[in-house]
């Protein structure tokens, strides 16, 4: 029991330490809902040239995101020649693999991709706490029990997933025009997995 208590304390301390380490100032009048502007237009096809680096392999191809309705997104990755590599659906909090090539059909990998892509398409997010850092507003948000910090200066330009006070995954959005991020990078710090997306439409 004592062990359990101290674990909780440690967990609490560890989790709380990221905003402190980053010198975030707590914002008092925080907004309760944050809207992720990207991939939110159902009339648009979001098409990117993509590079996925997994350990020493690089898969290049076309990365496609389509909003099909409220809380309903489809994410497909194909080779340049059009052969599908994976095809995922995110519908009302559920996740479905419509297709994946045998070489990538590994539960661990699918789970990582699911977590990453859910962050890209999750639109309505409950803010737990808000902070400021110079000109940047930072929102603390939980998705599937994981803690994320959304950094918004002019636009949403960074999301960081934090575990035990450390940055685990960083999402960088740049070359933003209106609600489209023309460049997106997803960088993992604890595994060799990086995803680079460059808009082509």
């Amino acid at each position, binding site marked *: 029991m004592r062990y359990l208590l101290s674990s909780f304390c440690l967990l609490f301390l560890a989790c709380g330490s990221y905003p402190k380490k980053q010198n975030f100032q707590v914002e008092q009048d925080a907004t309760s809902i944050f809207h992720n502007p990207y991939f939110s237009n159902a*009339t*648009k*096809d979001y*098409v990117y*040239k993509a*590079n996925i680096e997994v350990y020493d392999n*690089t898969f*290049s191809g*076309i990365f*496609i995101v*389509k909003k*099909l309705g409220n809380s309903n997104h*489809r994410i*497909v990755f*194909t080779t*340049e*020649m*059009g*052969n*599908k590599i994976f*095809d995922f659906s995110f519908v009302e909090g559920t996740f479905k693999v*419509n*297709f994946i*090539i045998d070489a990538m059909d590994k539960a661990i990998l699918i789970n990582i991709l699911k977590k990453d892509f859910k962050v890209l398409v999750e639109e309505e997010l409950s803010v737990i706490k808000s902070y400021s850092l110079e000109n940047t507003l930072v929102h603390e948000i939980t998705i599937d029990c994981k803690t994320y910090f959304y950094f918004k200066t002019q636009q949403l330009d960074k999301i960081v997933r934090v575990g035990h006070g450390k940055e685990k995954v960083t999402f960088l959005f740049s070359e933003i025009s209106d609600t489209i991020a023309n460049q997106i990078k997803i960088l993992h710090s604890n595994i060799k997995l990086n995803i680079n997306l*460059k808009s*082509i*439409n």
Partner: protein
Amino acid sequence: MRKIVYILFFMVAAVNAQTKMSSSESATLKAKVKAHATTINTLVSDFTQYKHLDFLSNDIVTSGKLAFKSPNTVKWAYTTPFKYSVLFKNDKLFINDEGKKSDVDLGSNKMFKQLNSLIINSVKGDMFDDNEFDILYFKQELNSEVHFSPKDKEFSKYIKAFHIVFNDEGHVVELKMIEPSEDYTKIVFNNRKINTSLSDAIFAE
């Protein structure tokens, strides 16, 4: 009533647009395409690729140039909207992704090897292998359309059928690869030139 007549007329017209070939017609087409394929030493063509995914509002359109040199060197170079090329040469696959180069040894990769011979055969139009495909022949005005369905179970998980359209000279003008989900990739060839002299630089790694 007039409306129904019109609808019926169009339905008949649509059915007529693509009719099954008789066995002698398909034999003639096969012979024509095979004879033509054996004369090809080099081939260059522009291509436009349409990736159709049912859930998208528009097909994804990419385009570039294809170059082939007998017996088995092929380069697909996409130029719009990005620069990306794959070169099949000496049992290897060389990739140039916006200047970033890499290669894959095909000797160890059955799937890529299959893909390579398939690309070459489909470019030439010579895929008439009854052991590998169930083949159906259709006429559409001056053109012919042939449907190739892979017999191999592994393969058919990825591609349900290839539809190749030949013009009246037996040249491939369109290639469609259909996935089990009915999504497809359609490649339309234009400006095709046969047996022109091609500089080695085109096929440089």
